[in-house]
């Protein structure tokens, strides 16, 4: 098999006495949408935080395209191509939508003088990336709108647009549909499906319709540990998973 996009080995994160993530070894293949499911408190968001670098692991390793990134800070991981969106909307409310995306696009500028006096080409590139990201998330009409005035659903879209402006190859999506109405949910699911065509995704989502619509592989976590990993069909058919988690939701 080809080199995986991301691989964790015995990843553990303790908070005091609690093992929020316990000995998690997972492989995320290139081009695959891999959902992580589990009840509240299962450690899903902690896994994302460990993968993005927002939290350091207590032990274990993370390899991205074969390189050990366990000790790399967030910003270096982003520049390597790991983008992340947050469960709680995390935008810059006082800036316009385009400026929000531009901040992501700027991470692709080289450091040093290019950040003080960028060439015309570099400036144009940043602008193009920001506009492209805004179009991707479906907010091109809102380019000059102050982000604080967006609707909840639009903010969630912007959240994804900002991430896309950093031009990631791997997307870490922490409940992208959180708090959305049906119509918004449908729109963002469609957006994710489009992004899935040429990106690798790790997705946490409670909306099962959305998960089953886009995910190709599913990992179920309970109490910080991996219960089972498999294809959508395997997970749907799994008795252990049914018992531990899906139970009520999987039944029609």
């Amino acid at each position, binding site marked *: 098999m080809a080199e995986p996009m991301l691989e964790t080995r015995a990843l553990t994160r303790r908070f005091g006495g609690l093992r929020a993530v316990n000995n998690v070894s997972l492989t995320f293949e290139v081009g695959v949408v891999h959902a992580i499911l589990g009840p509240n408190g299962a450690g899903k968001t902690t896994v994302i935080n460990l993968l993005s670098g927002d939290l350091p692991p207590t032990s274990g390793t993370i390899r991205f395209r074969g390189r050990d990134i366990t000790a790399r800070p967030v910003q270096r991981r982003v520049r390597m191509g790991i983008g992340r969106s947050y469960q709680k909307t*995390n935008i810059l*409310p006082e800036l316009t939508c385009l400026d929000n995306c531009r901040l992501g696009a700027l991470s692709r500028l080289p450091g040093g003088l290019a950040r003080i006096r960028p060439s015309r080409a570099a400036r144009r590139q940043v602008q193009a990336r920001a506009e492209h990201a805004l179009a991707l998330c479906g907010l091109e009409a809102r380019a000059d709108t102050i982000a604080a005035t967006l609707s909840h659903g639009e903010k969630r879209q912007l959240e994804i647009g900002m991430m896309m402006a950093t031009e990631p190859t791997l997307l870490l999506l922490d409940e992208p549909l959180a708090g959305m109405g049906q119509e918004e949910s449908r729109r963002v699911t469609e957006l994710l499906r489009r992004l899935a065509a040429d990106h690798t995704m790790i997705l946490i989502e409670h909306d099962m319709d959305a998960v089953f619509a886009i995910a190709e592989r599913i990992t179920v976590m309970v109490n910080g540990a991996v219960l089972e990993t498999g294809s959508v069909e395997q997970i749907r058919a799994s008795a252990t998973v049914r018992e531990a988690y899906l139970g009520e939701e999987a039944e029609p």
Partner: protein
Amino acid sequence: MMSRALSPTVVLPLLFVVVAVGLALYPLVGETFYVRLMAKIIVLGILAMSLDLLVGYTGLVSLGHAAFSGAAGYITATLILKAGVTDMALLLPASLAVSALLALVIGWISVRTSGIYFIMITLALGQMTYLFFHDVSYWGGTDGISVWDKPVLAVGGWTLLELSDRMVFYYTAWACLVAVYVGLWLLMRAPFGQIVRGVRINPGRTQALGHDVHRHQLAVFVIAGTIAGLAGFLEVARSGFMSPAHLGWHESAMVLIIVILGGMGTLVGPVIGALTLVLLEDWVADLTSHWKLIIGLFVIAVVLFLPNGLVSLLTRGAGPSWLRGRRATPAEAQAEGGDDG
């Protein structure tokens, strides 16, 4: 049309042009005493602009900023007094280098903290710098250092600038004020400034978009410290005097008040803040011996009724929200607190 013309991105630079032209013309009409006062205001304005870069643009509230101007001032005064150096081509780079280096050290430690801890650590390190110049007898203790010779800029026998001449000093300082304003204005519009703005608004998210928050904060800290060093150099050239009081936290707090009074994150605000505070002090001190009380009440009134400083009298109701009011609009409040979805 009106609201477009009143956009802060237009009003603020325009305001600076008005202030700069006013300051340039003032010596032609003003009394000597007030021209001297204006020179003081210009130097203080440069110092306040450098602090605004930290406080207003980067969200780093430093209570030790006078350490950088003071250290640079001490180096200038010492080189003049003890080494007999008056060559500006040597004095200026030396004092800038010292303030930059000090800012690098203090900044490197400070940017690891944030909020109240950042205030406390800059205060502590600023006071350490103060004590260094206060206690080491080489620097002359509380009395400080008085110099009679002023920096001179000469190239190949041609004297270009003789800062002992009041008018030459005045316009040199004025040119520095304009250069610092233009330089910082351009810097804050550049990608660097856009990233710094992100760091101020939402450091966590800015990092998650691929930017090294600490490195940008440190870069700003060093730039601000170096410009403060320029102000320290000019202060010695202006007054011929440098004492520990120039580095103490009183001085740092005064500069911070000037920034808040004029309007944070506007660059021109701090200049107007310096102008207002110095002129007000001069005026009120003539009226009553309790002048500090009156100044205090004035500062409180401005903070209460014009939380964005005096420049918001001109920019209120127009432009981006970060200039309109620190108090979030309902939509913003929702954006910050209501998304626990």
